[in-house]
């Protein structure tokens, strides 16, 4: 809580909307975890990197898997190693502290300067997982019963939590968070994002690619809608492949970069066939410019 003046404004390689910047700053100022939700590919994980870069802090990433337990993030007591060591008697096993290893959250607490801690994809874990972290995130300390020590956070870390909404998060957990939903970027913002990655892109190509992209996303029956990162890959493929802007709307070249499911492929080709190339040429979408 040492500095309220710092403020996050996005970084060169990450465009953050005004609202998102605001949410980040509120979370930092209040010392609350920032919960980020949004469609896959809207840059949830990238945000933490950007906050760390933007504020000049170190980033610690705690990737959550379905087997992750809340305690794993605090510390791990390696009993098995201790048992093995005790068999040989060449280590000092009387000091349990040698067998306590800090988890990501523990590391963040013990860091000598304030860090950014990313708890990535919290919804992957067990339903009770977020509740198990309530206390630690609230008061920023935890107890190690094995040694009787209490670990206090030297500097309250900036905690960023991402969720894909696979599972509902518990209310008690939500109450303590600052929440932000990253909406899927509109065409204007998307062209800014692309410009960051490919500054020299031809305007015509960009328009056509965006028109085709949003046309694709507009197809309701797609099982997996293409996301930002796929669009970026696609734009690169188009550039490298030397595709002319006119071809994009007509043929949708390198469609495999955008669509990952057989079913979607057939759907799109069907539509393309039925509606003809006119459907998604940029001229049909003047508002996208």
């Amino acid at each position, binding site marked *: 809580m040492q500095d*309220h003046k710092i403020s996050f404004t996005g970084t060169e390689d990450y465009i953050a909307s*005004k*609202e998102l910047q*605001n*949410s980040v*700053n*509120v*979370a930092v*100022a*209040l010392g*609350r975890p920032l*919960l980020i*939700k949004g469609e896959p590919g809207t840059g949830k994980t990238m945000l933490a990197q950007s906050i760390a870069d933007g504020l000049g802090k170190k980033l610690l990433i705690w990737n959550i898997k379905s*087997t992750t337990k809340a305690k794993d993030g605090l510390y791990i007591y390696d009993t*098995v190693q201790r*048992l*093995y060591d005790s*068999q040989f008697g060449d280590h000092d096993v009387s000091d349990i502290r040698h067998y306590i290893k800090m988890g990501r959250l523990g590391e963040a607490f013990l860091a000598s300067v304030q860090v950014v801690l990313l708890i990535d994809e919290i919804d992957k874990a067990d*339903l009770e997982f977020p509740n198990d972290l309530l206390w630690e995130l609230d008061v920023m300390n935890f107890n190690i019963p094995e040694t009787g020590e209490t670990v206090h956070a030297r500097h309250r870390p900036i905690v960023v939590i991402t969720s894909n*909404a*696979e*599972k509902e998060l518990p*209310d008690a957990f*939500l*109450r*303590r*968070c*600052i*929440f*932000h*939903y990253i909406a899927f970027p509109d065409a204007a913002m998307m062209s800014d994002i692309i410009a960051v990655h490919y500054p020299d892109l031809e305007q015509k190509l960009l328009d056509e690619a965006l028109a085709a992209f949003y046309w694709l996303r507009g197809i*309701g*029956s797609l099982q997996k809608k293409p996301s930002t990162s796929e669009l970026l890959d696609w734009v690169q493929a188009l550039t490298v492949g030397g595709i002319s802007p006119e071809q994009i709307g007509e043929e949708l070249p390198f469609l495999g970069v955008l669509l990952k499911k057989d079913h979607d492929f057939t759907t799109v080709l069907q539509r393309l066939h039925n509606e003809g190339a006119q459907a998604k040429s940029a001229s049909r979408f003047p508002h996208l410019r």
Partner: protein
Amino acid sequence: MFINFFYLLKAYGVPVTITEWMMLTEALALGMAHSSLTGFYHLGRAVLVKSETHYDRYDLAFYSYFQGIETPVELTEKVLQWLEKALPPRYISPEERQKFQEWDLDELRRQLEQRLKEQDGEHHGGSNWIGTGGTSPFGHSGYHPAGIRIGGEAVNQSAVQVAAQRNFRGFRTDTTIGVRQFEVALRKLRQLSSKEEGPREELDLDETVQETGNKGGLLQLVWTRGRKNMVKVALVMDSGGSMDPYMRICSQLFTAMNRSSHFKDLRFFFFHNCIYQHLYQEPSCSLSSAIRTDDFLRMLSPDYKLIVLGDASMAPSELTMPGGSIDWSYSNDEPGIAWLQRIKNHFDHAVWLNPIPAHFWARVTGNYTIAKIRSIFPMYELTVEGLEGAIKKLKVRQ
């Protein structure tokens, strides 16, 4: 001074709590709103709203609190009162029913639209309130002729789209008769995780002793995989008016499901007559409990066992026509059948349980839609035997 805003948010269905309100106060004290309304808007949303599905309600509440509408609450009441007066009485006499049946869908809709237009003139900004869809009785209404369909002797009993007050009833009761039988049947819905997958997390004591002995007392820990029930279940129930006669048996199944603690995960969802782009988390199908069907499909992986519980009887238009939803204010761009097909395709295992006894399926009023839905979902009657059949179907590898 903003405390009324807090209550207004609650009234609009944003679940705000004191904790969050205090947090907002703290942030305001730190100057996080940058002394502007826009700043306050974003700050409030970040601190008070915890789900993107509530964003819209927050916007509405914010709009009504800050945008020059002087007495928003009163206005709501006024509109509601007006709506109440305009509603047909809840008891509909046979003559009146005749009148309704003569109207077709478009006529009915036109009439209501007409009324709404008039109201717009009378109460300034009134359309705004109705536009929210959830707060006016117009949003959630449906009238079903009282006749029960299984009799087979009635002719014109298809549900007509009428805006009328609907009685909501929760499903959860403490019925005990029959519950146990369902529970026993449900216990068969079990699929243990194999010894082949998952992390080795449990200490295999026998093997550990054996191995340690083999090593002459040198400790050798052996880990094994535990066996757990991996079955995840999603129960999607029709809570529409035509289900009323079957309320009791549905409650029994619901109670039995709820008591079954052996599932890895169990989720309940509700719909009204047919599934469109929204499902509901409460039997009332209120707007505040709505989730998008797309999100439902994203949230539940295909390995969930889907059980749909409904009478599958509705007006053919409700199933096959865009805009055919029984709720007048609810517009579905895609016909219900497309949604049903999509849901069926998503899940590896899905069954439909029908409280109407199987031998009536071909004869009841809803036989057309029952047949249609049966072509998508394997359908079983809601009896203990039917449930067992359904469970077998859910366990078969496809």
